[in-house]
């Protein structure tokens, strides 16, 4: 190797060093170009242009607003451990002077929380570290938490705020109430959410309805009753037949009991026109349409009754009116104080007059398939009917829907878009579509279709997006008030159950919101008025549809209510007020104040005035002076969302108004 001639070597070395030199030169130039491109690329970046435009924008504004120092801005949010660079472009979010500025410079809408303290990502999601709009806002394949569309933003409120009522988030609240109303927890795990609302038990359904009606119902529930919550399972005709035959075999009532027969003396009168007319009068007097709808009129708390006669067997109906909770445990329907004759009359009216005259049931004989019971039960379990409907003796199904406890944070790749995988992959898209067309993603899905309006779809999607995996730091999670259920024992407790009072009224934090809170009823109302009211209840607010029904209350129940109100449902703070009601000059001053403050814009006395507030005729027979005084002092303390404005009344004015309102008595008119 060392024997090569030097001349040879020289020539070769020259040639190879030349190549190296050329390579070196080219590489150097490329390196310099790259070195130059990097800062240039940064110099022409989108955010820099946005910041420069901002600076020239604020220069032209009449108010003096400091220009921004050009540079990438980022904020580390310690509590939620996130870094957001959003303020690089969204420069004015904390500057109220820029609330008319265009995006991205405009002020953040005023919020319940400081946006900078909570961090942008906490509510909006998106890619906080991105430095261009497409990546920060867009639906990126590789980013699992894309920006939440603004219309679903209330989902983020729900990550920290539990409970079905979040007053500042109406869409979320509606969605959460729908989760309960539609009994989503019947099939899906949803955290600690339990099956929400009353759904009829199927024990004894074979005695309740006819085969033809049940088959028609299973085929298309919303075609039979448009407002039903029962979803459509897309059952085939064969499935409808098997399931119907299986259900028609369920003849025993929930506790394994049988129906009582209608006494012969009454059964013979059921076809009598006068008897039916009597039933119709009772139906009106009891104000059944406070909750039920008939021919388009009435409340929406309970099922429509327009075609009840075609659906329900009269013997079942007679038993049901007598003891609703024996036939349907847990039903909100109160037990009316009807006598057997009155019950039969109402049954006669409902069975013969409220019928679906356009429906001709198929009366040709039907012979069930030989193995209908087993196959029907299999269907019952496979569609998890028992998730909502109780049926004793049938064990629950293990084949329920997916766990939705943390669906709002479920990784995107776990959503199976199936044959619709061309759609933008976002959680909102999947959930919305699943609710709208539950079986569109694949074949052989079992989720039924609920009849939902677009508003309801949006609300439910929002509520589901709010289902969190618990990654929010504990101290930011709002703690709901620990609510012990109010469930008294003794005679009053029995009355509450018998008449389902807490469906509409609330006592000590438990119950419905449709009717006044009764927690302080004993300090608000006079005992004698309570007693006379239950004899013939009337509405103090003439515009309401859902009015207090006439329960035909027996005297002993009325007495228990009067005493319980008077002794237990009291608020000592209200009771202690000292106004001289006999002072006529005080009454006159109160009357003057009533006129000056234009109370009559909302309240009626002697038929004059508005309908927004309660009628004040006979208020002196109904209310206690302590209540009038304290209510006027601060109505929102007792009913936070009351439409009565908070007045600014001094002690003397309050006393005068109290004296005047208490002077409004029946004997004086």
């Amino acid at each position, binding site marked *: 190797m060392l024997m090569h001639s030097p001349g040879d070597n020289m020539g070769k070395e020259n040639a190879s060093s030349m190549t190296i030199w050329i390579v070196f030169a080219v590489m150097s130039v490329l390196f310099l170009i790259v070195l130059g491109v990097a800062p240039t690329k940064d110099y022409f970046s989108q955010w820099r*242009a946005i910041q420069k435009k901002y600076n020239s924008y604020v220069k032209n504004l009449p108010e003096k607003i400091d220009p921004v120092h050009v540079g990438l801005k980022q904020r580390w949010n310690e509590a939620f451990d996130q870094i957001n660079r959003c303020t690089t472009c969204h420069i004015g979010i904390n500057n109220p002077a820029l609330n*008319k500025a*265009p*995006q991205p410079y*405009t002020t953040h*809408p*005023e919020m319940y929380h400081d946006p900078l303290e909570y961090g942008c990502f906490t509510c909006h999601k998106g890619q906080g570290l991105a430095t261009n*709009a*497409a990546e920060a806002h867009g639906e990126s394949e590789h980013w699992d938490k894309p920006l939440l*569309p*603004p*219309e679903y933003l209330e989902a983020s409120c729900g990550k920290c705020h539990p409970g079905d009522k979040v007053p*500042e988030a109406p869409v979320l609240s509606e969605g959460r109430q729908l989760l309960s109303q539609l009994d989503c927890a019947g099939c899906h795990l949803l955290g600690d959410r339990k099956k929400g609302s009353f759904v009829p038990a199927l024990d004894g359904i074979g005695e309740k309805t006819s085969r033809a009606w049940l088959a028609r119902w299973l*085929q*298309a529930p*919303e*075609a*039979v009753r*448009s*407002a039903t919550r029962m979803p*459509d399972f*897309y059952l085939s005709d064969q499935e409808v037949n098997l399931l119907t035959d299986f259900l028609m075999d369920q003849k025993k009532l929930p506790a394994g009991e049988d129906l009582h027969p209608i006494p012969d003396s009454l059964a013979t009168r059921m076809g009598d026109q006068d008897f039916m007319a009597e039933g119709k009068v009772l139906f009106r007097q009891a104000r059944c349409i406070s909750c039920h709808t008939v021919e388009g009129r009435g409340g*929406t708390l309970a099922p429509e009754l327009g075609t009840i006669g075609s659906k329900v067997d009269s013997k079942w109906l007679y038993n049901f009116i007598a003891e609703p909770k024996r036939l349907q445990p847990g039903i909100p329907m109160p037990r009316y104080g009807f006598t057997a004759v009155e019950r039969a009359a109402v049954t006669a009216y409902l069975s013969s007059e409220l019928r679906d005259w356009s429906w001709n049931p198929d009366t040709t004989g039907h012979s069930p398939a030989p193995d209908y019971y087993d196959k029907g039960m299999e269907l019952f379990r496979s569609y998890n009917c028992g998730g909502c409907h109780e049926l004793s003796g049938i064990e629950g199904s293990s084949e329920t829907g997916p766990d939705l406890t943390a669906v709002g944070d479920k990784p995107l790749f776990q959503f199976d878009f199936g*044959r*619709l995988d*061309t*759609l933008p992959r976002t959680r*909102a*898209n999947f*959930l919305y*579509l699943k609710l*709208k*067309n539950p*079986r*569109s993603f694949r074949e052989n899905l079992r989720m039924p279709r609920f*009849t*939902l*309006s*677009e*508003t*309801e779809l*949006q*609300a439910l*999607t929002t509520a589901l997006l709010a289902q969190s995996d618990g990654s929010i730091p504990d101290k930011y999670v709002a703690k709901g008030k620990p609510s012990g259920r109010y469930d008294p024992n003794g005679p009053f407790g029995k009355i509450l159950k018998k008449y389902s009072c807490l469906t509409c009224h609330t006592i000590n934090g438990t119950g419905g919101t449709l009717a006044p809170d009764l927690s302080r009823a004993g300090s608000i109302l006079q005992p004698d008025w309570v007693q006379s009211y239950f004899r013939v209840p009337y509405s103090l607010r003439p515009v309401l549809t859902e009015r207090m029904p006439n329960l035909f209350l027996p005297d002993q129940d009325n007495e228990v209510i009067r005493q319980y109100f008077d002794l237990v449902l009291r608020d000592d703070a209200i009771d202690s007020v000292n106004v001289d009601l006999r002072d006529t000059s005080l009454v006159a001053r109160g009357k003057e104040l009533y006129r*000056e*403050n*234009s109370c*009559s*814009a*909302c309240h009626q006395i002697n038929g004059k*005035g*508005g*309908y*927004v507030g309660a009628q004040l005729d006979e208020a002196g027979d109904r209310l206690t002076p302590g209540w009038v005084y304290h209510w006027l002092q601060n109505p929102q303390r007792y009913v936070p*969302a009351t*439409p009565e*404005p*908070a*007045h*600014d009344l001094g002690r003397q004015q309050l006393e005068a108004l109290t004296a005047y309102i208490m002077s409004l008595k029946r004997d004086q008119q």
Partner: protein
Amino acid sequence: MKARIWLTVSIFALQMIACGKNESHRTDEMPGTVPSDTPRVEETRNRQPPTAEQVASSPLSARVQYTLSYPARQGKNLFLRYCAVCHGTTGKGDGFNAWNLQPHPRDLTDPKYMNVLSKARISETIREGGIGVRKSPDMPAWGNTFTDRQVDEIVRYIRTLSGDSANTPQ
């Protein structure tokens, strides 16, 4: 500049996608009502779940286009709760209680009257009531009921009733 064009185009495209469902359809529908396209009995016999093609070809999007900005939507909720009984759900002054009042409540959708009022004047009317601004005392004073922010939200909503476009989302 290019990015801006893209942004504009994508926003436009998004709006196009969502055009199938406009806000009026969504907001005016009371919760619990059944959409008008509920199938009739005849159509529901032998129904099948929709096929992939049917789903993909129908105007489908989870997007909702709001015509009101966030504060104005909050204001609308307050308006419907507290004001609509007299001023009407659409602000025309035709609430159910309007006929008990003399003079009738103001038509808040009248641009000739409303658009010359300053924001401060409307806020003052809400806070001080009719008495405070020498109008009908039937309008109560709400200053002790609402926070300043709530008053501002209501004003923003009222502004949109008379065709003021400042509160539509950018």
